[in-house]
Structure formats: C-alpha cells, structure tokens
C-alpha cells in the first residue's frame, strides 16, 4: 500500500513541478512579448532616425530636396554588392533631377566576417561618402574603418573614398597601398581595409553600370 501512495505522490509531484515550470514560462513569455510590443514603435522610430543620421553622414542634406526615405527602390539579391538578401536603395533628387544613390553594400571577406557599409554615389559617378554600419573586426586593430574608433580624427580612414570616381581612379589604384593602390591602411590590419576597398570599388562599378535604370525605375513622383 505504501508503495502505491508513494508512486502517486511522486507522480503528483512531477505534475506539480511541470505545472509550476509551465506557469513561469507563460508569465515570462508574456512579459517578453508585452515589453516587445510596448517598445516596438519607439524602437522603430529611433531606427528610422538612425538611418537618416547615417545617410546624413554620407550625403549632406543640403544636396537634395526630396524625402529620401520615401523615394526607395527595393533591390533583390545583388551579388555585385555582396548582398544575399533583399535591400533598399534610396534615391536623392534635387528639383526632380537625380543627385545620388544611397545603398547598402557588404564586404563578405572581412577579417571576422561580413562588413556592412552604406555607400552614396553621386549621379556623376563620384563617391559622396562611405560609412561602416556593422562589422566584427578586431577591436583596436581593424575597427578603425569605423569613424568613431579611428584615431586619426582629422582625416579618418574611411573618408579616403570621398571624391573618388571610376573616371579618375583606375582599377589598379582602387587598392590599398600594400597591393599597389592609392589607399592608406594601418599596419597590423590589412585584410579589413582590403575588404572594404574591394566592396566600395564594386559598389561604384555597379552604380555606374545601373545608374539610369536605378534612377528611372518606378519613379512616379
């Protein structure tokens, strides 16, 4: 008899424990989804603001007069930009005339994985600006590609691209100095700048080849 009662208690215990765990899971999952839903609008708003801030860094606001975040073009997979996923391209115009294309490019061959860039290329083919948006390069070594981490405050590394264009700079020169090009790099981290340089070069080429289509497509406004 005792063994039977024991078995029942053990079972009852197991059920009770499982129920307790389940209740905890439900409560904390609820807490998580509540926090997520409650914070979502604010997070999205600041994400848009962040995006605008990034765009401001690569292209001065005075150069265009349209609402750039609304004048977009959805890009499908674009291997030329290293993009395996769909991305968005922003078009800057002044008085309806094309000014610049702002888009994301990915350098797939960074020292520690992908380096994400935002690139602005003027209608003339000139690079208006490049910024790194996401990377995992070694802190203190390869992270100078990020303007905030660059010790050279007067002329950060990433600003070297500004003003470069395919017309002025030959393919051979679109490389870091170590590879015979014209771009500086810091000793100790060559793979990182090499990857970024290659990605920007490819982005410039892609923009040059597709410029007219990109500005015209779906432009109703």
């Amino acid at each position: 008899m005792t063994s039977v009662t024991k078995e029942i208690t053990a079972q009852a215990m197991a059920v009770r424990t499982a129920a307790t765990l389940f209740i905890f899971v439900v409560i904390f999952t609820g807490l998580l989804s509540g926090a997520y839903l409650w914070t979502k609008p604010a997070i999205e708003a600041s994400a848009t603001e962040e995006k605008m801030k990034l765009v401001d860094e690569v292209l001065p606001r005075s150069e265009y007069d349209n609402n750039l975040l609304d004048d977009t073009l959805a890009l499908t997979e674009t291997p030329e930009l290293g993009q395996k996923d769909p991305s968005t391209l922003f078009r800057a115009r002044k008085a309806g005339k094309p000014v610049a294309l702002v888009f994301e490019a990915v350098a797939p061959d960074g020292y520690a994985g992908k380096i994400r860039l935002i690139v602005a290329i003027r209608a003339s083919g000139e690079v208006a600006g490049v910024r790194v948006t996401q990377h995992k390069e070694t802190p203190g070594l390869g992270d100078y590609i990020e303007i905030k981490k660059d010790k050279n405050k007067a002329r950060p590394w990433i600003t070297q691209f500004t003003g470069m264009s395919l017309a002025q700079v030959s393919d051979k020169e679109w490389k870091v100095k170590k590879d015979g090009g014209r771009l500086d790099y810091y000793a100790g981290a060559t793979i990182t700048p090499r990857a970024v340089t290659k990605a920007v070069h490819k982005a410039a080429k892609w923009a040059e080849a597709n410029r007219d289509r990109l500005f015209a497509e779906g432009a109703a406004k």
Partner: protein
Amino acid sequence: MITREEFKTIAENGIWKQNTSIVQILGLCPLLAVTTNAVNGIMLSLATIIVMALSGVAIASLRNLIPHEIRIPVFILIVAALVTVVDLLFNANLHELYLVLGIFIPLIVTNCIVLARVEAFAAKNPPLQSTFDGIFMGIGMLWTLGLLGALREFIGSGTILGGIDMVFPDLHPIQVLPESYPGFLLALLPPGAFILLGCLIAWKNWMEARAAERAKLKPPAPIATAGCH
C-alpha cells in the same frame, strides 16, 4: 530589512573577498572580449550591475515559489527574460544610453556571473540583500575590469581613456606614452588579457597572504568555481 553588519559583509564580499573576476574567476568570455580599454570594461560592468540588481530582486522575491528541482531552468528563464526586457526598454526609452551600453547588454547573457550569484545568493536571501549583493558584485567587477582594461590599453597602445568619445563625444583618449610608442599588440589580444588577469590574481593573493601573515593566520583557501567560464 538589512542590518549594518549584513550590508558590510555583502559589500566586502562583492568588492574584494569574492570578487567575481579575480576570486571566483567567472565571466571570462566578456572579460576577454571587452577589456581592450578601461571605458569598455566599465560600461560592461555598469550594464551588469543593472541586470544583477534586477535579477537579484526578482529571484529573491520569487524564491519561495520556485521548486528546488527546477530552480536552474527557472533562473535561466528569469535572467534571460530580464536581460531582454532591459535591452528593449533601454533601446526604446533611453536611446542615447543604449547606444553606449547597448552592445554590452546581450553580452551579459553569456555572463555566468549573473546566474552564479542568483544561485548562490538570491535563491537563499531576501530581496533587499540580494539587490545589494548584485550591485556590489557588479562594483567588484567594475574596478577589476576597469583596471584590467586600463592596463591593457596602456601597455597595448600607450593611451588612457580610449573609447571615452563613445560615451562623451567631446572627450578624446589621452596619449600617455610618446606618439612614437610602437604599441604592444599582445596586450590587446585575448592572450594579453589572460596574462594580465593572472597578474591581477597574483597581486590579490599576495595582498591576502601578506595580510594573513601579519595576522598570523592561514591564508583563506581560494574559492574555485569550476565548469563555468
């Protein structure tokens, strides 16, 4: 409530006797990754203080409702949920601070200090004590990571306060050693962190041993926590 004596013990344990980084040797992953300068180390610690205080109070309040057999999954659930909620709330409401601390908050999930303190302290003590325990453990981590970061940065690149511009955009790192200092890469890479951490532990043990000798007492046995890095 909390007595003066209890408070003193909690503070002493957190800051020195049970210091997470140099006595308990916990949370080495973020320690190695983050302490390339003092500012990063301090920021990670601040984020940890917030999470530890919150998880301490949450688990201490619920401790009588949690069956002993399933305490670990429940603790993990609570800590992970809290970290995520803190992350979301920071992102939404304190965006400026989030930009500074934000990258460190997900790192805390990989930090077993939180779980270790919850299991060792909050599960057995009232909420107020547990909150203080979390805060002081965090302060202990703060000075250790700050010091380790400062040392690595000084030896590695000859500056102090590198990364300060991330927190206060107007400030810049101060170059202490001459500009021509070639830098010592090893200090900035993970092995350098291990070596310097070893030196810090040795220094702490030396201090303890000296104090013990003076008191003519045996040095306290180091508390080792295995299986959690």
